[in-house]
């Protein structure tokens, strides 16, 4: 409270809080009831807040605004990065690297158990498989780059193309060795859908 002579009056904040109904300060409320000056301030503020609350909130912008906004959005094509394609590329890269690593580990273990030299038609070794995996990762990352900024339908099409590329990678790796990835059981599709759902929910890749 503020003091005037021997009288302690309400502060601006107390007047406001009483007028807005945002205080449990019974002492302040009691003073407002007993002090004509403070009581008037609270009542004036209450009326003011009621009037302010009835002011218009909506105002239509000029009609030129919308086409200008759409022009700016179209010009922003190069900077907007749909999150889900980056997530998809990351998932694809992780899967292919994991599969390549698992296959190469299996081959290395098998090779150590071969009696003498490997058979003529045996895979060329872990390095070749890793290289194949890297090529698939690069292809999917390139697909993600192409997908940036496209509209909804194209984005859905791109997703299916990316899924097909990942399925192809899994088939190839499975053909090369002991891979646990089996596209026929929709494991890849499940991983892709999970990543897609996380991206849609705004989660981190």
């Amino acid at each position, binding site marked *: 409270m503020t003091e005037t002579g021997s009288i302690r009056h309400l502060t601006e904040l107390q*007047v406001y809080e009483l007028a807005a109904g945002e205080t449990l300060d019974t002492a302040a409320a009691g003073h407002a009831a007993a002090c004509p000056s403070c009581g008037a301030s609270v009542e004036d503020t209450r009326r003011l*807040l009621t009037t*302010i609350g009835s002011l218009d*909130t909506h105002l*239509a*912008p000029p009609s030129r*605004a919308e086409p200008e906004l759409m022009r700016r*959005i179209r010009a*922003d094509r190069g900077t907007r990065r749909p999150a889900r394609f980056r997530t998809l590329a990351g998932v694809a890269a992780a899967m292919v690297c994991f599969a390549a690593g698992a296959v190469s580990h299996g081959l290395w273990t098998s090779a150590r158990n071969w009696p003498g030299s490997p058979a003529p038609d045996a895979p060329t070794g872990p390095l070749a498989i890793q290289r194949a995996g890297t090529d698939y990762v690069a292809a999917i990352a390139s697909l993600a780059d192409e997908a940036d900024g496209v509209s*909804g339908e194209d984005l859905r099409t791109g997703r299916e193309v990316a899924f097909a590329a990942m399925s192809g990678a899994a088939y190839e790796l499975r053909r090369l060795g002991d891979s646990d990835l089996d596209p026929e059981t929709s494991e890849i599709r499940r991983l892709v859908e999970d990543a897609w759902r996380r991206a849609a929910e705004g989660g981190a890749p």
Partner: protein
Amino acid sequence: MQAREGDRAAFARLYALHRDLAYGLAVRLTTDPDMAEEVLLDAFASAWSGLPGFRGDSGFGTWVCGIIVNRAREALRRRGRAGNRLETLVEEPASFGDAWGDAVSHTEDRVDLERAISALPPGAREALLLRHVYGFSCAEAADLLEVSVGTVKSQTSRACALLREKLSHD
């Protein structure tokens, strides 16, 4: 969701849904309809760019209002405004009505109040508008203004005191 995926038509629908509230807020914050139009465009363009990262913790309209507040502050800083054009507009109620459109009833008391609000210090005006014109809670207004709840309350109470003083002298 569709707008977040890059669907411009979906974003255009979001714009149509929220543009009038956003523009109204921008005009009140900047007190300049032309500046407010640029703030509106800038804010929605920023919303488009930032939509993939929008987590939906608040509603889209609230999120856009936060962007409007920041863009309005930047625009006012750039222009270094000391006065405001709304005062010029409201000296002639007809032009004030032109700025706000046919939907506004511009009685003389309302015009005086609008003029007085537009003349408030920026911080007090922001807090008062968000709390009592646009109906945000104290906590929401504090988030939008990036200040504490206590600051919102003190700024709003200050705004009310200044308005009462101004309107009682007019």
